[in-house]
């Protein structure tokens, strides 16, 4: 840091009052510049500390190391939102597609359950029909599936 030295005065005992005043003014200016410089240095240190703290908190490098594709997708999403694509039809379509994809396993399980129940019903109906025919009943059977 550059320090402005105040002028020690070259007049000696023969210097007049105006020169003394000038020296005093220079001295004040140098102090002010010193203070501004030290404040700027302090601000720079604080800013660097804040950035370091933020980096430690976010731990972007560690997160990218652990989940590279997820972080890339998150960055893509952040850019998409910053680009103004949030409240658009494309977002709606993407959300609908996502909901459908997320609901697919549930719907699949439900459909499989319904199909199994239907198959069981058909088997039970066929067994009952077979039992009824074996009993020699002439009565016409109901609706058979």
């Amino acid at each position: 840091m550059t320090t402005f030295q105040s002028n020690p005065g070259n007049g000696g005992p023969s210097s007049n009052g105006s020169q003394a005043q000038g020296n005093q003014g220079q001295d004040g200016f140098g102090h002010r510049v010193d203070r501004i410089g030290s404040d700027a240095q302090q601000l720079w240190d604080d800013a660097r500390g804040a950035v370091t703290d933020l980096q430690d908190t976010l731990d972007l490098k560690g997160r990218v190391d652990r989940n590279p594709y997820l972080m890339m997708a998150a960055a893509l999403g952040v850019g998409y939102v910053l680009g103004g694509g949030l409240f658009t039809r494309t977002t709606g379509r993407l959300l609908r597609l996502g909901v459908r994809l997320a609901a697919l396993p549930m719907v699949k399980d439900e459909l499989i359950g319904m199909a199994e129940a239907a198959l069981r019903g058909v088997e039970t109906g066929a067994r009952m029909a077979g039992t009824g025919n074996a009993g020699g009943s002439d009565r016409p059977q109901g609706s058979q599936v």
Partner: protein
Amino acid sequence: MDVNPQQIQDKARQLQENLLPQIDEARRNLEDVNTRVVSFIRANPGTCLLGAVAVGFIIGRIASRR
């Protein structure tokens, strides 16, 4: 049309024998590409994240204009 099950079975086996090496090679290639991409992202996280944000920004701009 006369269908011979033995012929169909042979054809299916031949197809499988032809396709399996290609599928294996494609899988190996994909794994190689995946390893390279992940290594690149891990080596340059800032660049990749900034690039992804930029690409997302452009997509967002295009989507908002429609």
